[in-house]
């Protein structure tokens, strides 16, 4: 069993809205999976199901546990940071460490203190006295000091300035990540995490529209930049999406041999953001 997370036919309905619609996927150990989708696509709902914070239909196994029924056991091995899961504003940094140390069997206080020592966060400060960036640093320091198997990040850098964002991902990779650990992350700032990801999942309207390893993308997807007759010719080959850049046509192809397109224009592998637009808008068209 190398799958850390295994979902099969997972759905969640709020009233008449189907936030997550019959979703199935697997996440393996040691991977960094990006869950990409527009607002309201069901990303947060899906993460909540994985974290045992909401009930759902279908089958979902996380670290071999049923997340909703075994949340306590699960949380010993999962950490998460979300912009909606803020640290309580009244607590002091020291108290927070005391609390997690008492509650969490896999927390190493010394490690957290080391990490906090590298920041400007005073241990006597209350959370309400810290800037938003510092609160995220604090949260990441605590979580990095937990020997957890799976880390779930939901818009972890929302509202942070660029320096904090860069530092966040650098710390994540340097201090946290190793082959024993797995990360599941959602963010709007796709460009910033593109290089970290080993896998990517696109979600739209509660459905998964793409689930692939990053290194398979160049084989499967290609973007052709062409003009005039060449563009017209390329259009016959069923591109999944087409847009215009500087007067030229940019066509995105799925599962097409690159050799068939080479003579028509310039080829490149689409970046995640472009591919996302192609998959989502292309499917809608």
């Amino acid at each position: 069993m190398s799958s850390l997370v295994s979902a099969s036919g997972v759905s969640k309905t709020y009233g008449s809205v189907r936030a997550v619609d019959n979703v199935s996927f697997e996440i393996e150990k040691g991977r960094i999976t990006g869950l990409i989708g527009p607002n309201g696509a069901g990303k947060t709902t899906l993460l909540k199901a994985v974290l045992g914070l909401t009930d759902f239909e279908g089958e979902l196994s996380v670290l071999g546990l049923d997340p909703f029924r075994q949340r306590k056991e699960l949380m010993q091995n999962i950490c998460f940071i979300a912009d909606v899961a803020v640290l309580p504003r009244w607590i002091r940094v020291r108290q927070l460490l005391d609390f997690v140390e008492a509650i969490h069997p896999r927390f190493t206080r010394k490690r957290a203190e080391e990490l906090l020592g590298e920041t400007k966060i005073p241990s006597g400060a209350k959370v309400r006295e810290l800037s938003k960036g510092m609160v995220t640093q604090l949260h990441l320091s605590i979580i990095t000091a937990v020997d957890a198997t799976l880390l779930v990040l939901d818009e972890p850098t929302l509202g942070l300035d660029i320096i904090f964002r860069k530092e966040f991902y650098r710390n994540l990779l340097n201090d946290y990540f190793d082959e024993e650990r797995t990360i599941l992350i959602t963010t709007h700032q796709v460009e910033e995490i593109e290089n970290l990801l080993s896998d990517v999942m696109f979600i739209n309207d509660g459905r998964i529209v793409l689930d692939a390893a990053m290194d398979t993308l160049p084989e499967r997807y290609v973007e052709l930049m062409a003009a005039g007759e060449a563009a017209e010719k390329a259009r016959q080959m069923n591109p999944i999406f087409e847009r215009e850049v500087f007067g030229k046509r940019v066509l995105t192809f799925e599962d097409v041999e690159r050799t068939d397109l080479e003579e028509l224009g310039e080829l490149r592998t689409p970046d995640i953001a472009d591919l996302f637009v192609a998959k989502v808008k292309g499917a809608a068209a």
Partner: protein
Amino acid sequence: MIQTQWALIQRELWEHRAILIVPIVILLIEALGSLVGQVTVSTAHQTVDIALLSAANLSETQRAGAINLIMVAVSILFVMAMGVLTIFYALDSLYAERKDKSILFWRSMPVTDAETVVSKLATTVIVIPVVTFIAIIATQLIVLIISSVWVAAEGANAWQLIWTAVPFVDNWSSIFILLLALAIWMSPFIGWFLFVSAFTKRSPFLMAFLPFIVVPMLERIFFGTWLFGQMLLNRVPFNVPIFGGIGDPETMFDDDSEFLALLESGVSLLSLIDVPGFLADPDVWLGMIVCGLLSFAAIYVRRFRDES
């Protein structure tokens, strides 16, 4: 399990510092009051002059009675504060974490919803009474020390007149039992407050107290009965069935009440406390069952409610 509860309760005290601060403030006020020479307690309409203790012509009984009055008088403000603290704490305990959005952080820790709600229940039923008890003892000791200085200044023997005259064990054990009995007696309300705190989207205070007015009114209009209102009126702190039915609870603290007369007679406080009678009272158990059910409901709401 114990370690988790300990950490959770400590967390409650960090967040709700009033639980510790209010008793300390009352302690300081009463110490100051006694320094001035008297403890004034509005509810009891009693002014107890500490100088009384030095009067050499007091009989043993009179002195014991005066000491009883002082001890009880010192406690009353704390017991009232305990009530107010409990109401505000319980109503805030499961509401604030949703309002400040920290609930998902707390739920990201390996702690079950049941453990969390139990820690909040334990804070109201055990921690607040114990803190109140400690504060009462400390205040009594301070007041007695101040009285001793006073008495000594009058040229009398404070050790003999005060310290050997106060039945400490009797007094303290009765106060402790009374505080716990009060918490258990009022526990259905605590359960209700916890449930409202977990359930309501806004203004927990209003949501908690409005039904106490509206439900009896509706019952009166539609059924012509008065059962719920009667039940509420029956379950007030003064009705705690721990005194073995001495005197009428409603007039317990009137100037001419039997209860005060009993105290003044220097009776042992512990002899007024009837623990078996309390435990044999079906109303006590009914209250605990209601508290348990409502706490269960609070756990259920915290677990199944999806804040998004």
